[in-house]
Structure formats: C-alpha cells, structure tokens
C-alpha cells in the first residue's frame, strides 16, 4: 500500500473542500473496496478523506419518499423498517450481496462507487484501459465469464458489481451530490454510471471532488410485487453472474400498469431494461409476454468467449421473476 494522508472533516462541505484542494484525494467510507484496491496498489490516493461518519441518517421526505444518507451502512439500510415495508426490493438486493461482515462496513455511497471486479483490472501485470487509458484490455481475449453482454466496447467489457444499485435503478432512485462551494445537484441513479465507450476510466457522471450525500427513493406501488434474484457460483458471498430486479404494478383488470426491470452482472452499469418495460406496459401478464420482453431487451446482447450463457440465463430469471410476481397474491409482500 502506498503511504497516504488521512483527513477526517467535520462535515460534507469540509470533505468536498479538502478534496478540491488535494486532487489525488479519495473519499473513504467503509473501505471494503477502496482499501482492498490500495493494498493491490491499483488505487494510490495521496489523501484519504474519511466520510464514514457523515450523512448517516434515513428519513422520510416530503411527498412520501425516503432519503437515505450516503454514510448509512448497507446492513442498516436493509434492516430499516421503512425500507423493508416500502422498498423490499432494496432490502433483498442488499442482503444478497457480499457477506454480513462486509455489509456491516459498507456504505451506500461506497456501494454506488465501488469498482469493477474484472480480474485484469485487479492484476497490475495485466493491461487495462480503465487503469491506464490506452494500454489495451487483456480481458477481451481472457477470462470473460464475469464480463458484460450489454453495452460493452472495444475498450472495456467490465461489469459494475453492485447488487444494491440494480434495485436502486429499478426503483428510479436519485442520487444527491454536493460539489465545491456548496453546489448541490441530483442525478438519477441510472444516469450516474456510464457505459465504457472509449473512456472506461470515466465511470460515473460525478465531477472531480463531488460527494454523494444521499439517495432518494420516491413513492411507488411495487412493494407487493417486487423481487431481486441473483445467480452466482456459490450460495453466498459471490458476485452476481447475473441478477434481476423486477417489479410489477397490476391494474384492477389484472393488466400490467407498470413493470420495472433492472439487470446486474450484464453491463458496465446497472442495466435498466426500458425496452422490456415498454413492451410489458398495458399487457396482460403471460409467460410468453415476459419472454418476448426479455428477448427484446437482450437482442442487443453481444457475448464474449465465456459469457454467452448469461444471455439465456438472464432471460430465464427475468421470466421466472415476473411470472412469480404476477402470481403473487396482493397481500403477500
């Protein structure tokens, strides 16, 4: 690990200010990803700005939504009563990730900003455009089992590893940011992460020094019909091969008023499946309908040497998730 300076600001403004002055600074939350990467010398910040004690509350917001501070631990989010009752999708997604120990340390902000698990990104003897722009990508012809089937580029085919973010994408969450001199803005989570294009080193729409302060969830009608399903290589403590956050809102006549669908493990960002959603809106739920929607969403998929299986796999999980949700009795959430 490369030696660094450690700062613990009193508030978010102070954090942003330190970060503005020290360009090679990184925010430190739970450290479960950042410290690992520092040990591998993949990340070499000169200054660590500890934000783990900031933005630590969950509260209701006007109009019925929920505001979750960026510093809230993943475990606390999953266990929070309002989250469990109003956004059970988020609870399920968080609990399917990592291990209890890691979730106890990991923060909401850190989870959103965690970096890819591409094996070549982690290995400093390999070429990686994300680590070193223009160096080349050793993953393309290497082990691509965990890589993208959607939205990849010739520069990078890495996936975003978060489970939580897949649920947040499906729930249309927005992310609150604070920039230098008190500049605040909000980004939809689906717009926060980027596809790699020619600049895989630029992973998010955050400006340098911008700090995530909170995630906001809006009221929704999905609490009774939503599920997060993750497929992985062992029963627990493994990243998703694919994951599916699905939600249905059925009208009185049983037709689909609105469907939500987001996919994990398939792209450089949590993949909001808007094509499939649009195909399902207004339809009567039917297995064939769901399959068609899944086929349409995945028609753009481009498999790599070891991950073609993900296409069929994710379709199956989409269909089975929606089928189960459609069959669910109204009361049983």
């Amino acid at each position: 690990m490369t030696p660094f300076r450690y700062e613990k600001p009193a508030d978010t403004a102070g954090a942003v200010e330190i970060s503005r002055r020290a360009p090679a600074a990184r925010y430190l939350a739970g450290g479960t990803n950042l410290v690992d990467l520092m040990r591998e010398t993949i990340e070499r910040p000169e200054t660590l700005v500890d934000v783990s004690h900031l933005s630590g509350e969950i509260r209701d917001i006007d109009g019925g939504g929920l505001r979750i501070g960026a510093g809230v631990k993943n475990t606390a989010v999953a266990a929070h009563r309002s989250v469990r009752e109003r956004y059970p999708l988020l609870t399920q997604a968080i609990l399917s990730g990592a291990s209890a120990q890691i979730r106890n340390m990991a923060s909401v902000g850190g989870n959103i900003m965690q970096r890819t698990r591409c094996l070549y990104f982690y290995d400093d003897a390999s070429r990686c455009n994300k680590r070193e722009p223009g160096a080349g990508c050793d993953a393309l012809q290497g082990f691509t089992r965990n890589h993208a089937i959607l939205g990849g580029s010739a520069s990078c085919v890495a996936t975003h590893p978060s489970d939580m973010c897949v649920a947040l994408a499906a729930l249309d969450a927005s992310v609150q940011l604070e920039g230098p001199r008190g500049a605040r803005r909000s980004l939809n989570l689906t717009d926060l992460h980027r596809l790699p294009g020619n600049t895989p080193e630029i992973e998010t729409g955050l400006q340098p020094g911008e700090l995530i302060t909170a995630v906001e969830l809006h009221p929704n009608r999905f609490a009774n019909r939503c599920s997060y399903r993750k497929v992985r290589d062992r029963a627990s403590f493994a990243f998703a091969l694919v994951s599916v956050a699905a939600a249905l809102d059925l009208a009185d006549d049983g037709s689909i008023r609105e469907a939500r669908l987001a996919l994990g493990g398939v792209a450089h960002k949590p993949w909001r499946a808007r094509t499939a959603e649009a195909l399902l809106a207004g339809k009567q739920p039917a297995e064939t309908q769901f399959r068609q929607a899944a086929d349409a969403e995945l028609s753009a998929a481009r498999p790599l040497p070891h991950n073609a299986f993900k296409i069929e796999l994710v379709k199956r999980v989409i269909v089975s998730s929606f089928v189960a949700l459609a069959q669910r009795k109204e009361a049983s959430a």
Partner: protein
Amino acid sequence: MTPANPAMRRFGTIGQPVSRLDGPLKVAGAARFAAEVRPERLAYAAIVPAAVAKGHVIAIDAADARATRGVIAIMTHENAPRMGRPPRFIEDPDGTAFDSSPVMQDNRVRWNGQAVAVVIAENQDIAEHAASLVRVSYSPEAAKLSFQALLLSARRPASILGQPTEVNAGGDAEQALASARFTVDEIYTTPRYNHNAIELHALTAVWEAEDRLTLHDSTQMLALTVSTLARVLDLPKDHIRVLSPFVGGGFGGKGFFSHTLLAIAAAKLAGRPVRLVLSREGVFRLIGGRANSRQRVALGARSDGTLTALIHTGATGVMTGTIFPEQFTFPARHLYAADSLHLDQAIVELDIPANIAMRAPGESIGSFALESALDELAAKLDLDPVELRRRNEPQKDPTDGRAFSTRNIVEAYRRGAERFGWSNRNPAPGTQRDGEWSIGQGVATAYYPYYRFPGSAARIRITADGRAVVQAAAHEMGMGTATVQSQHAAQLLGLPLDRVTFEYGDTALPPSALAGGSTQTASIAGAVIAAHERLVEELLRLAGNDSPLAGAGPKEVETRNGGLFRKGDQEIGESYETILRRAGRDHAECEAVGTPPAEMMNYSMLSLGAQFCEVRVNDITGEVRVARWLGSFDTGRILNPKTAASQFRGGIIMGIGMALTEETLFDERSGRIMNPSLAEYHLPVHLDVPQIDVIWTDIPDPQSPAGVHGIGEIGITGCAGAIANAIYNATGTRIRELPITPDKVLAFTSQPYGQSRPLSS
C-alpha cells in the same frame, strides 16, 4: 486456565470423543504460530513476483524501494547468499522439495509469479510498499502454457510415486472393451486447484550464528526440511533446528517451497531475524496446487454388470521436469475386479509452478472420473449403482493379487445406504421435484491407500511422580495429532490422559516422518509402541530382585493402572512411582524407531468409503446445492470419533468445493493465475455445506499399528463423483467437467425457458 475436559481424568480413552487438547489454547489466541514469533531485531520481508512466465530478468530498478525509509535490504539473484539446489521429495531420501530449481541464484524466470526480489524492511507495511516500487524488466521467452495445445506431446513419467506408470492385467483391455456388451467410454476433465489453508505460509528465520539456523516454520515436513536445508545450505543437520508447534491447516501445502529459502537467505543477507508471511496472492503464486487433468475412463461390462474391461488413462499438466504426476489411476488399481485392466498416465510439461500434494492428490480427481463412469454404466445397465459396485468387489487386489489386510466396503455401503435412505431414491433421472428444483441422489466410492512411512521415532519418559512425557517431532495441523497420540500413549502406559504429555513440533525431538499421505497417526503410533516395548524392558530391569515382578520376562508383564503388572494377574505388580523410587531414579526413558512398514509389502491395504449425497438443481438457473451428505467409511480403528469426524467432514467440504465452486483461473497467454484471492477463488461457504453425517465400520486392521488407517485424505475422494452422479439423477444431465458451475448445467438445457408453459394463477 484450561476448562475441565472430563476425559482428562479417565483411563482408556481410545475410541472416546476426546476434545482437542489444543482447543482452549487456540480459542484463547495463546497458540503461537510461526508468524507470531518475535525475536529481537526482527525484520520483515515482502516478495516481488515475476510478471512473465519464462525468460530472464535483465534489470531490476530498486532505487525507489531502496530510498524508502525503513528498508533494510533488497535481495535479488545478484546479491542473494549462495545456496544449492534443493533435493526433491521421493527422488532423494533427504529431499522435500517438489521443485529442485535453484532459488534466487540466477536470473531465470521459470513461472509467472516466481519471486524475483525480496524487500526486507523494519515492518511489513514498509516492506510491501517498497516491493510495489521495485521495477523489473525481462527478456521474455516463449513459454509452454497451453495444456490442450501440448496434449499431443504428453509423455509418460518414469513412475507414479515409485509405482509403475502403466498397469496391464488380464489381457488386452481395449479389445475386451470393443467386444463388450455394455460400454462407457468418456473423457473427464478437472481444473487446477490451489491451496487455501486459513493460515498463510509463514516463517521466522533466525541465524543464531554464522552456521546455526533456527527456523520457525509452518510445515508438515519437519525432519525433511532439516535434511533438505542441510544440503542446500551445506550445514550439518544438527546445526539446523526447525520448530512448528502449530500449523493452521496443511492439506499437503505446508512444506518446503521457494519461500522457505527466501526467508532464510533474507535473514542471512540482512544479518537479522526475518519473518516472511506470504500474502494470499503470494500463496497462489509461489505454492503450487493440484494439477489439471484430462482423463479417459472406459468400462466394458456384461449384462450382469461384471466388468470385462477397465481402462483409465489420461494426462496432467505439470511443471517441466516434475516428479509428481498426480496418481489419478491409483483408485482403479485396487477398487474393482475387472477381467482386464489398462491404466496409464502421462504428463504435459508446462512453465508453471510445480504442482504439489493437495489432499488426496490424484485419488481425488481420479475417483471423480472413475466413479462417474461407473454411474454411467449403472444407468446403461439399469442397475443400482451400489449393487454394480458390489458385483465388482474383488477378492484380492486386482493389480498385484495380494490379499487385502481388511476390506469392508460392502458393509460400509450397506450401512450407508440404510442410514441415507438410498432405497427411497427413484433411479429414473429427473423424477424428483420441489418447485423449480430438481432433486437427485448420487453415490461414489471413496478410496485412499494405506501408507506408513519408515523411520519415525518416539521417546517415552516416565517420571517418579507417575507421569509420562511422549516425544516425537510430529506435526499438529489442527487434526488432533497431539490429542490422539496422547490418548494412544496413555492407553498403552495405563495412565489417565491428564498424566501424559505429548511433545511435538520440534526437530530437537526424535524425528518423525512427514505428515503426508495420511500416515502420521499410524507412523507415530508404531514408534510409540516400539518405545513402549523398550520401556517395559527398562522398567523390569529397574524393578530388580526386590520387586514382586522379579523373575518375570518382558513378555510376561504389561503396563496398566499406572504401573507394571504381571499379565493375567490383577494383583502382582507395582506402580511406576514405586519402581523408580526404589531404583533411586527420578525417571526412566526409552527411545525407539517404529518397526519397518512390512505390512505394506505383504498386503494390499486400503482405506475405503461410500459417499452418498443429495443435490438440488435449479431448473431456471442451473445452480446446484448439496442438500444432504452421508459418508460411510472403512478406515480401520477410529481412535477418537470427534477428531476423526472432523477429518472426514473437512475432506467432504473440500470435495464439495472441488466439485462445484473451486477453480484456479490460469491465463494461458501469460501463465498468470488471475483469481489469486478468496473473493474470486470460490471456496465453499457455510451456505454451500449441508449437514454432513459420517459413520464408520471401526473394524481394526490386524496388520497396522493400533489397527488404524490414515483418515486425513479419504474424505475428499469420491465427493465430486457422488455430486456429479446426483446431478445426473436429478436432471438426466451428465457433466464430466469440473467444477460444475451453473453455466455448465444450463448448457444442457435445450428448451428455452418461458415459451411453453401456460401461466396458471
């Protein structure tokens, strides 16, 4: 304070579930491991691994590293102390290395990840940081890395652990196969696996003088480490002392590798004691694992299931010039009566680190192929797989015709099947369901040879206060060695357990054979038995003419109830205290070497078992979950059911990992392991492991010391076969490639899900 262990006060605890004597120490953090020894002026080392698979180091730029505050020295091939090549295990009686390449003596790179520099610093953080600053340039050469591409150049090794590489018996097996009524002829593949004991490899090397070395090591090969070091360092053996009181898991991976010499050389170079603890990545890069394999198993059978041909051949991918081909054909040498037998092994030589022993090397992967093939045959014959095995039960060893010392596998199967509820299984694949899960049961034979290594010695000292100390340079890797040997010695000496102390883990004690090949319990028990015989003679001599035992010969007395007594007579005898006091001695002491393991020459000796499991396979995702396990073993007398059950269970858990989740991702372009971490190398986690039931026949082997067989390795054998067979029963899909990950299961699902079934609500 050690909590009371009720067994401690008891006599005769053999066969009792005595808790591990080292348990309280470990729970309290008081057991001191090799990485925790802290001599004065201790320095810390970190390794710089090579980034190419083959070639030469042409320059090492260590200026930034050297300029880092706290760096003491940087060792490379240019300044490393001169050392000889380590003699190799098996090949050389002194040897314990798997790879005899010189360590940091030249600029050659032999595999990707080999150490090219070692940074020695005032603390571990500085050492690691400075190591990251060392820049190495190479002139790379084309390396041999693709097993598949080089398969055609596979060659036959001279022997398989001293056994013939090729075995043919009973005529031309290929011909018998060609004319067989029922046949199976398939290819099975297994990937590379890596060692991941919880304790990282660690050494603290202390040069007490220019020519005297004390090494605190985490090793399962104490005596051989000394003899190997004596050769490499050109020192008399008695100038080298190795201590290893606790090892945090061995599994074959804790031994003599390049890191051993790097720590010793670094300590010499720095002129200070040096601690080297490999990082988890370092363990993957420096310590070999299990070789990958491609195996063919072909079976020919009559309609009653009796085998007319058994062919097991194939190749493993090993380091160029290796001595360890992985004995995957060993199970087929002893398990089944076939009219004809053809077994052969080849190796593909690659520029990779030497593969090393890893819990049942060879037998684990070989039993996967063999036991899968048997299940395939059972399906073709429409015969119960347990019954198929029973019908092929040999009366004598199929390879060499020797008699079995003991063999109760049919009984183990019978008891196992009963307890598992095997008869409830529907043999038709794909018939048992629970929602979206398909359920199936599978079975496979577990096999591991009986070995006992010669040359183990033990010393017993009886003191005038009626206590005994038993000493042997044995290895405690958490299996319960110290506990079980204490039980055995206490039983022999007729003392309660709390009056016997077992001292081990130090080469200053009488030498023991290595803890490998599941041999240690029998090897040390044999030495203790020999020392005990001498002790009886010595006590009789000390008892003299004033003793009620006067005139009795050694064969006429026995040790029991805290003393020496005439056989068959409750009354006549004396306590140890009485004998020693009268003789004016504060102790009596005897040392002896165990009898040579002649039993291995005279008999075919095997440990056996039947592995039963139930799996659930998800129709939608291809995920496999092991739901239930029963292992039924025939492994001689069980000295301690508690520690034995842990060994069996641990082996089975490792077998589940081997079958379903573990795989070393080796990039054939670079020769680099791409998943050198526990995040990406998937060991089974708690949720992957079901309740594991283990039972055993407990029938002593009349030919082995104390009636015991080794049990450390057999647990992993048969597991992958049982799981693959259960998956077949669940789904009708036969997967012949490990590990069985969801994508492989899915590959066989032809129907695109979601187009057929109507939605019922």
